């Protein structure tokens, strides 16, 4: 993938906010002293009178955003995933989720690829936390094209939305000219019949790479980009379960409470015979190190996806 363009989805988020701000006067942005890292400063530079720094007070920021939404504005509130979903969970639950207010949470620095900052900042629990709130849409885009479309879709959606973006640059896998995004719809990036890999975030590019490797070995892998974790595209999951009979999920999140568990629940309750193997962070904390090295170490890689697909291939369909 040497000449593939790479851009971090947080960077795309900042650009998307700026585009959105140009089109819609009611878009305002809140940040908690991380504007340079969350990239809301891109919006701030263009629309300084619509960007409000809340200081290092994420709980207050979320309820402030709720109040602003109740007045008819469309606030995007941003911080690192750890603080947006973690620190401010209860404000998100009670002041945004319960009244179903129109707040969009743009959480950056999700997952282990935060890297050098270490475990305190590597949030691998945000999907689980946000999924548990009734009415909350939970999404994590795979690349630049998807991020910009997702931010627009979040604006158009009436109600609370949580979006998780990454710190590290990721390859652009979508062709913008032929791309459309819909909340709650997964996307088959590559068709295949032996095993389906359902991934989101930076694991989507890894899944495509694994599918390439496996194709050379005669294994046909279906790659599904599941950018919306909630509401889950159960139809697409069950189609994969029926047609492939084997599913690998891959996400930069704990194996507890994220995409993997959502897929497991959909499959288990459907009665469709299908074996599922989850790839994620295995109920442990991360640590400091370069993002690429950490992703390999924690098994969030094309290699590990390929190994897991082969592991599932060893099980017979019946």
């Amino acid at each position, binding site marked *: 993938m040497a000449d593939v363009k790479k851009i971090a989805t947080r960077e795309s988020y900042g650009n998307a906010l700026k585009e959105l701000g140009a089109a819609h006067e009611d878009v*305002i942005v809140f940040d908690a002293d991380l504007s340079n890292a969350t990239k809301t400063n891109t919006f701030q530079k263009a629309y300084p*009178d*619509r960007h*409000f720094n*809340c*200081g290092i*007070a994420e*709980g*207050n920021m*979320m*309820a*402030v*955003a*709720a*109040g*602003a*939404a*109740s*007045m*008819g*504005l469309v*606030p995007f509130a941003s911080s690192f995933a750890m603080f947006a979903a973690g620190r401010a969970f*209860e*404000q998100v639950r*009670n*002041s945004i989720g*319960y*009244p*179903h207010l129109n707040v969009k949470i743009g959480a950056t620095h999700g997952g282990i690829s935060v890297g050098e900052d270490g475990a305190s900042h590597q949030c691998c629990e945000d999907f689980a936390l946000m999924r548990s709130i009734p009415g909350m849409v939970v999404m994590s885009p795979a690349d630049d094209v998807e991020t910009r479309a997702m931010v627009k879709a979040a604006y158009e959606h009436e109600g609370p939305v949580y979006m998780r973006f990454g710190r590290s640059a990721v390859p652009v896998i979508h062709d913008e000219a032929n791309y459309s995004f819909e909340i709650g719809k997964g996307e088959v990036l590559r068709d295949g019949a032996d095993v389906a890999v359902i991934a989101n975030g930076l694991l989507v590019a890894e899944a495509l790479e694994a599918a390439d490797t496996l194709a050379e070995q005669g294994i046909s892998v279906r790659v599904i980009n599941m950018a919306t974790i909630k509401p889950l595209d159960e139809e697409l999951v069950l189609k994969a379960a029926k047609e492939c009979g084997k599913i690998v999920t891959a996400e930069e999140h704990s194996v507890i409470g994220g995409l993997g568990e959502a897929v497991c629940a959909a499959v288990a309750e459907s009665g469709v015979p299908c074996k599922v193997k989850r790839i994620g962070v295995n109920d442990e904390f991360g640590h400091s190190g370069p993002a690429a090295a950490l992703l390999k170490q924690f098994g969030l890689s094309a290699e590990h996806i390929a190994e897991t697909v082969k592991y599932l291939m060893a099980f017979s369909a019946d």
Partner: protein
Amino acid sequence: MTNEEKKQLQIAACKVRMGVIESVYAAKAGHPGGSLSAADMFAYLYFKELNIDPADPKNPDRDRFVLSKGHTAPGLYAALTNRGFFPVEDLKTLRQIGSYLQGHPNMNTVPGVDMSTGSLGQGISAACGMALAAKHMGKTCRVYTLLGDGEIEEGEVWEALMFAHHYKLDNLCVIIDNNGLQIDGPTKVVMDSGSIPDKLAAFGFEVAEIDGHSFDQMEAAFARARETKGLPFAIVMHTTKGKGVSYMENQVGWHGKAPNDGEYEQAMGELRAQLAGLEAE
């Protein structure tokens, strides 16, 4: 304020107190103590201060009120119903299955409720967001929020106070019901907050300290609040928890429990006598 106007507010406050007792008695649960300490403030807000219209509860230019101490919903509900937002008989459905009168205020079910609250410390933040948005949108409406003196132990309250000062929210009025008691006991014993007015002043607020059962002092404080430009305004009101029902006054045990049959009769008897006295004046 004319004597007649004051009398009408006293009557309204007495009816708020009766609504609190009626609803909490019917629910067999709820928070009478802090509802009664703030009953005079609820009456003043809904019958004099707030620019609101029960016939048009969602008017985008109305004043907003956020009950940050959401557990005193019975007081808010009683004020709303007496002001004509919903039928008074519905008060008796408080906390029942199927009722829109939830244990803590729900903005999506109760006409006139501007923000869902109940988790302490969050209402003041939402009020800050409303005040900021109102300024940003060029609205002239004002935002009021009522907190308990136990509630200010939440760190988020101080985050919100900093925010209000930083963004010069002079359309915001923060009211603190300083009745001195919280569930576990006197605030000074549970967690002594020291001088609340001094702390608010240190956070950049213009502060008025008043008797929370005096309509004259409320009138003066709110007039000052409206005249204050460039700074947020706070009213610290000294009140008596359980005010108006003799056996509940200053009794921490009445923070969050319902009266039994005998206690209900006594409370209502006292309040009916107060009301009759006012109406006979």
